[in-house]
């Protein structure tokens, strides 16, 4: 096992970074998308039911199936993987963002308007900062989930550690099958833990002391 890792250490490190890279990029894009959607939904309350339904149904689509569906559209490679991961990453963030934005005390919002903040200023300076802890909790869930999804996305030759898992599965009974699977899995777990730590730190830095739990 050790030899297996040492022999391929450069490639493993590279793939690990690729995996982290894919997931983090996808989650960042997903966060922006989800928050924008959530803002839209809080402005048009009728959309809120629709959004809940979409995110509930979305999460029931097997990721393997989605990757398959995307193949004819986006082809094989990193782009398909990125789209698939982003799609799933949006869902938990969207849900939390809607809950978070709707949960902001309406008297605070009215008070911000009453002091002459424009709607955009009020959103930026009052509503988003107050909803941020809830949104960030969604981002953490999303990040964990996306780590696994990114592994599946390797099936279409996406970047990252998923490739090792598929190689392992393909070579069941072979000499390095278990090694491949273990390296892929443990690598993902480690990346996931580090990413979570990073998000925790981000929370420390971005959540106001006045509302931190």
């Amino acid at each position: 096992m050790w030899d297996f890792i040492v022999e391929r250490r450069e490639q493993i490190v590279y793939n690990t970074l690729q995996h982290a890279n894919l997931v983090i990029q996808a989650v960042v894009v997903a966060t922006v998308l989800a928050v924008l959607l959530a803002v839209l939904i809080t402005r048009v309350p009728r959309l809120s039911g629709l959004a809940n339904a979409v995110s509930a149904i979305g999460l029931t689509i097997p990721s393997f199936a989605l990757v398959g569906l995307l193949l004819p559209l986006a082809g094989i490679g990193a782009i398909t993987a990125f789209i698939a991961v982003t799609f799933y990453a949006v869902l938990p963030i969207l849900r939390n963002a809607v809950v978070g934005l709707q949960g902001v005390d309406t008297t605070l919002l009215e008070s911000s308007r009453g002091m002459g903040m424009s709607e955009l200023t009020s959103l930026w300076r009052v509503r988003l900062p107050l909803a941020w802890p809830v949104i960030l909790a969604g981002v953490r869930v999303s990040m964990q989930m996306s780590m696994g999804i990114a592994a599946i996305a390797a099936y279409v030759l996406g970047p990252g550690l998923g490739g090792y898992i598929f190689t392992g599965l393909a070579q069941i009974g072979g000499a390095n099958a278990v090694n491949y699977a273990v390296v892929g899995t443990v690598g993902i777990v480690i990346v996931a833990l580090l990413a979570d730590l990073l998000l925790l730190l981000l929370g420390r830095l971005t959540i106001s002391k006045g509302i931190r739990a």
Partner: protein
Amino acid sequence: MTATHETSTQAGDRAGEISGAEIQLEDVVKRYPGQKTSAVDSLSLTIPAGEIVMFVGPSGCGKTTSLKMINRLIEPTSGTISIDGKDVRKQGHDELRRHVGYVIQGGSLFPHMSVEKNIAIVPKLLGWSSSRISERVDDLLDLVGLDPAKYRKRYPRELSGGQQQRVGVARGLAADPPVILMDEPFGAVDPITRQRLQDELLSIQRELRKTIVCVTHDIDEAIKLGDRIVILQEGAHVAQYDTPENVLAAPADDFVSDFVGSGSTLKQLSLARVNEIELADWTTARVGDSTEEVVRRARVAGHEAVVVLDDRGRPLGWPWLRQLRNEQRIPSYDPERLNTLDSRATLNDALDTMLTSSHGGAVVTGDRDQFLGVIDFTSVTDHMRMLEQQAASATDGEARG
């Protein structure tokens, strides 16, 4: 008990210059779609510059709606509202609101911003320089009785309810707006804190003389704070718009008298102050005076007790003559055991003090605790009766004219 609440409602003893602006509402109507009756049905009102006008009425009477139409948080269906002669609809609503202070229940501070940031919101929106803002924050915290060094960096959750409300008031005053709107500002704090905050608001107002429009459902608060009270009925129909004195003494109709409640004469007690009443002279004595001579003077004046003063004229005790029987000279007394009344105390406080005294009266002191005289039950009741008659004849006169 030395009561020194400042509960004046007389414009006359205000110190500062008027910095408020007149607000005028003309035929203001608010009708929500799908509702038969208007929430506000043709409200016309002039709110004089530099006064506190209280909107009071049962819930659902449209008082909050009326208030929010002034800063256009609610847009009127028809009618005009002007501040200082300028139609509020002719200005952008954000611009308008930056020049109208807005204070709501509990202060409604933003929990994710420090006290400093909360107060700085409107000045920042107006583009003040940061040094000017910082100075202003210090001034305001001082004004509302919070030590800037200690509180400016704190977050709302680190403050008590009363402190939060103080910061809320400071935030409303931040850009020095001529008009301040308050919506149940002291509704969320305990009664003792509320009383203190009310007193503070009055003393701030004495200095600043803004135009303050304040919504409350509490008639006692309205009487205490208001220069004038607007009593609103359903649909924001004005049942009466008058000074607290006249509302209490001469309610316009049954609705008002029901709303004001049965204790209206009692309520007047917190309007009038001890210094409005002529105090009774009383036999005084200095520590060390000959008892025999003091007793003789007291007997001539018909007093059963004498007020003992120290050499600076401050009352020390109020002994009965029989307590002095065995004394050659007037002894000294511990002033701690004498309940005096400050001349600025309300009659409510005065009655309180009198009730705990065995003399059926209270010793009144002025500046630096100088003895001024004695107040008794009869003078208080006479005064109340006189106020009532005055108000009645004033409204009679209006009715005839």
